[in-house]
């Protein structure tokens, strides 16, 4: 048996029912007591919350504008968007800023920032699909199984469209 054949046999033996067999890196944070996470590729940086400038007539899910090193970012209340009530700002509150490739530069408030964790493919379960497209739980894409608790994965790409929907 050649080496490549061995490799093929090995890969067949591995439980790879997920389409992405590679492990993903997730930046974790807490909203209330629950643990949430976003793919690290979408995160630009994590920061202490700078002074907020509220926007008149904005929906509840928009906290305001913040100035990060001269660039204006939209600050969103992810907790509100997920139906967990409005965020209260504490010493632990952090601003997670996402990559500019997602459109308008924006970030979300989190109650507490966690670690960067690596999720293997077999630690991931897809989110049960919900038929109603306006349901905010559509923001969640999957559930990660960590040793201590479960991790809810947030789809960053759907945050801005949801806010636009709310504005309309």
């Amino acid at each position, binding site marked *: 048996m050649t080496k490549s054949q061995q490799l093929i046999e090995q890969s067949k033996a591995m439980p790879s029912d997920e389409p992405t067999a590679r492990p993903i*890196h997730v*930046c974790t944070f807490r909203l209330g007591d629950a643990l949430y996470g976003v793919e*690290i*590729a979408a*995160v*630009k*940086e*994590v*920061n*202490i919350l700078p002074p907020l400038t509220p926007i008149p007539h904005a929906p509840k899910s928009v906290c305001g504008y913040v100035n990060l090193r001269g660039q204006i970012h939209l600050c969103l209340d992810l907790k509100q968007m997920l139906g967990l009530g409005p965020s209260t700002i504490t010493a632990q509150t*952090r601003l997670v800023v996402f990559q500019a490739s997602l459109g308008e530069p924006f970030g979300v408030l989190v109650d507490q*920032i966690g670690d*960067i964790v690596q999720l293997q493919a077999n630690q991931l379960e897809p989110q049960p699909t919900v038929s109603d497209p306006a349901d905010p739980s559509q923001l969640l894409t999957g559930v990660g199984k960590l040793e201590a608790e479960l991790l809810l994965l947030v789809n960053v790409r759907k945050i801005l469209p949801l806010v636009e929907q709310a504005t309309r």
Partner: protein
Amino acid sequence: MLHRLRMRTKMGIIIAILTVAAVTISFTGYYQLRQISLRLNSLSLNIAKIERAIILLRGQMNASQHNERNAILSPGDADSQKYADLATAASLETNKTRSVLKDLMQQYATDEEKKFFEEYERNWDRYLKLQQEILRLAVSNTSLKSEELLRKQSYQLLSELRASTREMLRTLETESGEAFKANKLEPYAQAQRNTRMLERLLLLATDSTATVGIHIVSHTNEEWDGLEIRINSNENEADFLIDEALKQASQQLKPMLIEFKNKLRLFHATNKQVLQYSRQDTNYKSTIMSITDAQIAAQAAMDALDSLQKEMSRHYDEELAAATSAALFSRYFLAIVPIIGIPVGVLIAGLLTRAITRPLLNGVEVSKAIANGDLTKRPHISQLDEVGDLLRAFDTVASELSKVVGNVRTYSDTIANSASELTNISQQLLAQSEEMSKQANQVSAGAEQMSTNVSTMAAAAEQMSMNVVSISTASEEISVNVSTISNSARETSHNVSALTTALKESIRDFDEVTRQANEGSHVTSQAMALSQQATSRMNSLGKAATEINKVTDVIKMIALQTNLLALNATIEATAAGDAGKGFAVVAHEIKELANQSARAAEDITTKIEDVQANTREAIGVIQKVADIITQIDHSVTNIAQMMDRQSRAASVSSNNLNEASRGVENIANSITEVAKGATDMARNASEAAKGANDVSRNAIEAARAVREITSNIHVVGQATRDNAHGAQKVNTAAHELATIACKLQQLVKHYKTEA
């Protein structure tokens, strides 16, 4: 510029440079060569088309001109018309070819070429207009017509006129011969006149014909006008002559003249017709036009075409030269760009890799040193990118940590000093309170003795009172037994002396107690001062603890910032993929360090809170000690006052006793003078009784005061014990503080700092 950019941007720049170079080379090469081939193809094709159109046009123009000349030169109307039609057809052909050429020019020609073409069109249009006119004139052919009319009709009529004239002349000759024979002069003359008139008429007609001939070959208006005047005058004269001839003509001649007149009229009319044609003079005009204006226009058109061809040839040469140079350029470009681009790309990539890896290795080395507790190591920072940010933040953390450790060390030393001082003070306090206890015990003993003395005194006073009552009773029995009285009086005197002695002893004891109390007061004020000193120490300790709290707040803040920084570094490193793995390890190390710093700060905060609680407790205890000492002070002052009062009461007693003693002695003296009367004695006895009662009352008061003093002394003892207990507590707190300071010192001893 390069060190300001993000690493991803730098990598992107390298890839972009290489990609752009490759794409530029291939695209430029392909585009240039294709452009050259396309341009050459289209150029030769278009030039061929245009050249063909021009040659065709030239042929058609020549045909048109040729036919036009033929139309002018053809004598017959039919021939002229045929050639004119051919010329018009050729012109139409040129128009068609011209429109084809115009389309081609519009698409491919340069502005210069278009200009030449426009010039050609302008000239050719002018020529075409002239040609139409020429053809119209050529077809009408009037000169030839007039010549023909003259030759055929006028000459015919002229010969006829000549014939009829000759006939008439013959008739007239006959007539004149007959008249001459008949010798009739009148008719003869008439005939001769008519003959001359006829000859004149014939001359006139011949002249008119010749003039008409000249008229035909003339071409200017002046000539024509002159000739026509001559012809008109000829005709008028002829008309007049023929009318004159008719008037005088013979019967035989008359019909011949009328006929002649008619012919002459016809002749005149014919001449008029000829003149009319001759005046039009079309053949001459058309010829002139054909060889002047039209010829110039056609020549100009031809010249324009020539220029156009030359221009195109020049344009073609230029394009060929451009294509050759473009081919040369692309060949050089294809060779030079890779030769320059590849070394530059390789150089930049090498430089960037070096710029990333070197500071990272430096950072790893320094972080290892710091993890081992060596805070003196510092990274070398020259970068301005993310790695530089990380190293700078790391440097700030290390220096802050070093500063904090130094501060904690200083503060813990201060705490240790304070604790040891506090221990000293509490021990001093303990010693003082023991001394005080001893003093209190001495006071207690003095008081006890005093109590005994007072009791003795009271007993003596009682006895004295009783003795005085006995005296009183006995005084009533004076008469009974004077010697008994004398004995009693002596006994009383003796008793009073004993009482006085007891009182004196008591006063001495009071003085001793007062002295002791004063000494106690001194001790308490010393204890007060010590406790105040302890309180101020405790307060400075509390302040130091608050300072340390501020420092730990700073540490916590730094740890938080470092944590965030490490998190962002991890995000960047993960985003960079495999290239960021080493960077991720460093970020993780830094994060661990930040967490350790935060934990240490938390630890220190807890310890400091303990210190603060202990300090507060110690301050409370010291306050309590101070209160107790104040109470002791108060009690001691009370004792001193009581003693004073007691001393005064005892003095009063002593005075009264002396008075009593004097009274008793008086009694004794009086006994011998019993006879002096019982009233005296009774008075003296009652006086003595009063003094004895006073003594007794004072003794009772003294006993009460002594009891009070004893209870006060008990309070002092209790307070002293409390004080000793408080001092013990202070001592414990000080020991605890010393332990905490020691722990703090151990906590920071691990770190090596520059200070």
